[in-house]
């Protein structure tokens, strides 16, 4: 009973953070490394992008392990949300709930606002900005910066790499510009 509660309830940051380090260590120990955005390049290569673009012309078979890893991630998501569902609503801070309500985003206790992240909203202007433009910028930026949150904020900074510090500063400059300067414009549309 105790065990089921631990596996169902959300984990505090001081459990989650070190557990993510464990994932990084296990991947290094297995002979690879922690970097999720590389899988996007690998999938482009499998899709044949290497035929006309040198950036995708590499032996993707050596990257199969990472695709298996993210497939595991999907399965982990299924287990965490359907086998051990969180019995409580997400404990979002009151000030965030208040800020978002000013943008007409209702917080219903789930992990993402379904009014934006749903198939119905995909064809609306707002939905396509959040999902299609958002995804595009993440993919483009991750490759330009040679890594994403896992590769830079966790692995790169753990190795005390200056390039990762510059990248993470960039993540925040971009995130703050979007949140404080561009969000108010998007929600006027």
């Amino acid at each position: 009973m105790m065990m089921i509660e631990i596996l169902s309830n959300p984990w505090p940051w001081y459990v989650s953070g070190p557990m993510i380090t464990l994932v990084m260590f296990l991947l290094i120990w297995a002979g690879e490394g922690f970097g999720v955005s590389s899988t996007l390049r690998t999938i482009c290569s499998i899709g044949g992008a290497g035929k006309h673009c040198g950036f995708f012309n590499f032996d993707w078979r050596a990257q199969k392990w990472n695709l298996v890893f993210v497939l595991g991630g999907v399965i982990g998501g299924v287990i965490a949300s359907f086998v051990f569902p969180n019995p409580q609503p997400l404990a979002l801070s009151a000030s965030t709930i208040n800020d978002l309500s000013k943008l007409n985003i209702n917080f219903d206790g789930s992990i993402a606002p379904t009014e934006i992240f749903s198939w119905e909203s995909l064809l609306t202007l707002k939905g396509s900005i959040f999902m299609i433009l958002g995804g595009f910028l993440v993919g483009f930026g991750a490759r330009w910066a040679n890594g994403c949150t896992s590769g830079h904020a966790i692995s790169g900074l753990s190795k005390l790499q200056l390039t990762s510090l510059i990248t993470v500063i960039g993540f925040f400059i971009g995130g703050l510009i979007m949140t404080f300067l561009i969000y108010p414009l998007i929600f006027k549309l």
Partner: protein
Amino acid sequence: MKYIKYLLIGVLFGFIMTKSEAISWFRIQEMFRFQSFHMYGIIGSALVFGIVVVQLIKLKNIKTINGDVISFPKKKFSVARYLLGGITFGLGWALSGACPGPMYILVGNGFSVYIVVILSALLGTYVYGLQKDRLPH
């Protein structure tokens, strides 16, 4: 058989990320608005432990399970590449509420529409590949 370990580590990753709520668009907004310590605690504690792990690997000369030496190759230094790439990524992160790991894990959480976010990220990666020689690095 070789791949089963990666599948299991991936399952662990998906489980942790879901339970940490780091896959939540709301949590990312809370982070960029500096309204909770939660995300900073996750990334910060992962980082502190990560620094210790990397130093231990170096000091104790820990080998991989295959007995190979673990090396950490340095990346070529550049400000333009990492800063501009990072900013582009950050703009997208604040919109989609998900970096690449969480995109996959959210699909597992039943948010099937994140498949579209992944497809868009693939398109972004592809367009970067086509345009990379025209961008500062």
